[in-house]
């Protein structure tokens, strides 16, 4: 079970993730997108999924990643991600509830390039009973 004290806590990644042109091209190619001047709108999941998993695997959080299902996803994109961006992820557990025995956790992850907020994402994760 999630530790209720985790709600509202923000975890900051110490490392920057460098976005490369080849990563944007590989992601775009799957979608049949030929314009790779900017990243596709959902590209940030490539960074936030892994980063938030690392950040929220802190034992004090109590989130069981092995039993997680992705419930919904939202992006707010302040500017497109570009090759050469160095992005830092911070993840916050914004909301938590238990329904029919399932734990429902909303995680917000923000990606910053230096002090500029580039993308905010919200993932609702369901830990199945």
């Amino acid at each position, binding site marked *: 079970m999630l530790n209720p004290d985790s709600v509202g806590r923000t975890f900051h990644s110490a490392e920057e993730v460098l976005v490369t042109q080849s*990563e944007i091209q590989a992601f775009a190619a799957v979608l049949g997108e030929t314009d790779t001047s900017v990243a*596709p709108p*959902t590209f940030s999941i490539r960074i936030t*999924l892994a980063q938030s998993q690392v950040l929220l695997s802190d034992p004090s959080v109590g989130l069981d990643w092995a039993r997680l299902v992705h419930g*919904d996803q939202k992006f707010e994109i302040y500017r497109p991600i570009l090759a050469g961006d160095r992005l830092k992820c911070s993840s916050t557990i914004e909301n938590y509830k238990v329904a029919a025995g399932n734990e429902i956790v909303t995680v917000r992850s923000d990606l910053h390039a230096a002090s500029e907020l580039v993308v905010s994402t919200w993932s609702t994760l369901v830990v199945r009973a």
Partner: protein
Amino acid sequence: MVDAGGARMIKVGDVVAERVFWIDRDLLKAYANASGDQNPIHQDEVFAKSVGLPDVIAHGMLTMALVGKFVTDWAGGAATVKEFSGRFTKPVVVPINQKVDLTVAATVSEIAAGMARLDITATSQGVKVLGMAKALVLKS
């Protein structure tokens, strides 16, 4: 409605024509590599069935990424997207050696300040796979 330049202006209620994307196991593998999401439920039939799924299922985020392609093709590029959201209501089941459809359509639900909001539907094999899907894009 036609603007002074003769171009057709969009209006609330406009329909974005339905389009079909085809999903197969090769696409799941390519998306797994491109996204970094190597969860075996998207590649390994034995594993998927062992956790109670009917077969390999597509990444929800692949479904959303393809819907994003539908949106950006209409809006005029990936740089137009300001907000994008959806709920994963049912999985897209991808049996081996088959191509399954992802059928996407949308309606313009709101226009304001150079932006348009789309309400989007997405189904696979007749089943709704994305709920409450919306996008807010720069579009005039």
